């Protein structure tokens, strides 16, 4: 975040668009001089190539303080039930809500995800450089899925029998966008243990997006991924539970949630790229244990340790990282930020031990 102090008469034209200048000129004329302390307002300013959020306030010297921070650049396309991407543009950054709730859910969910990364971790979008956030809704016919294709997030409407629309869950939107973040950072493979870590990282930050936007503590959060996606006819609450993997659904048609919570239940399979959506339950629960042991807001310390790990601050992660190798990196990252003997680093070690993951290289500090 940049803070720019500008006297009212010398606003930099490059930063503030003309309509804002007009507004400020009018405001400084009377209203602000009456009640400067109440004059703080947040305005969003978006341009095609660079998005920024500008908040203006008046300090005690009657100087306008313009704070410029990162802002998302969202475009939501509508595939109109075809499988053609990107679809017709339904809503662009800064535009008012439209009649289609699905479009607005995608727009708001991308905004909530952008906010977590930007406000908490100082990351400007998926690539850290303000990459536009592109999504397509109403993809395919009865399409039971949401995915990241390397460039955009794509959401189906569901079949209406088992699944409703996939934009209904903020954690799923955060999950998809986080696949992009992982692509630009640790670039973990999408198979076997590295793939399950890739999946788990998306679940972790998907859950954190939801908690951050609701300002929920770790103990108050549901730790569910994809809550509200099922139709009422399904016996289940969500796609996955980070708190209790394997308990999210138990339904005659869908079967039973197959996720293991510990290494004792690790599933070896060739399906689903080596069970990436199955074995993610193990690192998911490790993160849940860490977050609830530390308490408070999970995005602050637990999330920071995971984010640092993704950035290689616990040592560069190999693309084929195993659970044990990732665990070692999280211990290192916690040590680097909070100290090797800190409660945070201890909680990381305990979390992995509890899910049966032996930390690669032992538990050395």
């Amino acid at each position, binding site marked *: 975040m940049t803070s720019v102090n500008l006297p009212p008469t010398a606003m930099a034209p490059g930063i503030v668009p003309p309509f804002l200048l007009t507004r400020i000129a009018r405001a400084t004329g009377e209203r602000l001089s009456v009640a400067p302390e109440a004059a703080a307002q947040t305005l969003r300013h978006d341009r095609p190539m660079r998005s920024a959020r500008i908040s203006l306030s008046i300090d005690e010297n009657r100087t306008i303080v313009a704070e410029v921070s990162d802002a998302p650049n969202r475009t939501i396309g509508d595939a109109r039930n075809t499988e053609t991407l990107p679809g017709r543009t339904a809503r662009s950054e800064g535009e008012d809500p439209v009649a289609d709730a699905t479009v607005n859910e995608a727009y708001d969910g991308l905004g909530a995800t952008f906010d977590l990364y930007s406000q908490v971790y100082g990351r400007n979008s998926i690539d850290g450089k303000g990459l536009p956030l592109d999504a397509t809704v109403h993809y395919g016919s009865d399409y*039971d*899925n*949401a*995915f*990241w*294709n*390397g*460039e955009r997030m794509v959401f189906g409407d569901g079949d209406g029998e088992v*699944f409703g629309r*996939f934009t209904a869950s903020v954690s*799923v939107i955060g*999950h*998809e966008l986080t*696949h992009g973040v992982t*692509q630009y950072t640790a670039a973990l493979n*999408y198979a076997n243990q590295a793939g399950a870590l*890739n999946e788990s990282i*998306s679940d972790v930050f998907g859950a954190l997006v939801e908690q951050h936007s609701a300002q929920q503590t770790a103990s108050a959060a549901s730790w569910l991924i*994809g809550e509200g*996606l099922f139709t009422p006819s399904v016996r289940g609450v969500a*796609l*996955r539970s980070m708190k209790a993997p394997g308990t999210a659904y138990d339904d*005659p*048609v*869908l*079967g*039973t949630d*197959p996720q*293991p919570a510990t*290494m*004792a*239940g*690790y*599933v*070896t*399979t*060739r*399906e*689903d*790229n080596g*069970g*990436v*959506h*199955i074995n993610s339950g193990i690192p998911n629960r490790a993160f849940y244990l860490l977050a609830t042991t530390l308490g408070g807001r999970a995005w602050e310390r637990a999330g920071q340790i995971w984010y640092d790990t993704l950035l290689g601050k616990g040592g560069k992660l190999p693309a084929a990282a195993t659970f044990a190798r990732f665990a070692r990196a999280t211990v290192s990252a916690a040590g680097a930020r909070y100290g090797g003997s800190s409660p945070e680093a201890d909680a990381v070690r305990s979390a992995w031990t509890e899910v*049966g993951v*032996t930390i690669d290289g032992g538990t050395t500090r």
Partner: protein
Amino acid sequence: MAARRADTVTVTIVRTGGVAGHRRQWVATASGSAADLVRELVESDAWAGVGADPTSRDRFVWSIVVTGVGRRRTLTMPDSHLVGPIQELVRRVQADGEAVADPGWHGTATSE
């Protein structure tokens, strides 16, 4: 290839992956001219030339198993490559075939 051909062919579609990670399975049998079309398909270029999708995440993975065509034929492909006649076959089996409820996970649970 003088293997005796069954009168009918059986097509099993297994869909895994997706953000939900659900395993779904559909089975259908074909006889007569429909069976001939399936036999033709497994020998065609459409069956042979399937690539990978290294950038997508959470997309479905499709597995198509055909029996009754001589040796058992299996094709595994990413969702993004599911087009043309193979896609037609998959859609047909999903629509006309039997959805197998609660097929269970095809893997083994192992302790480390």
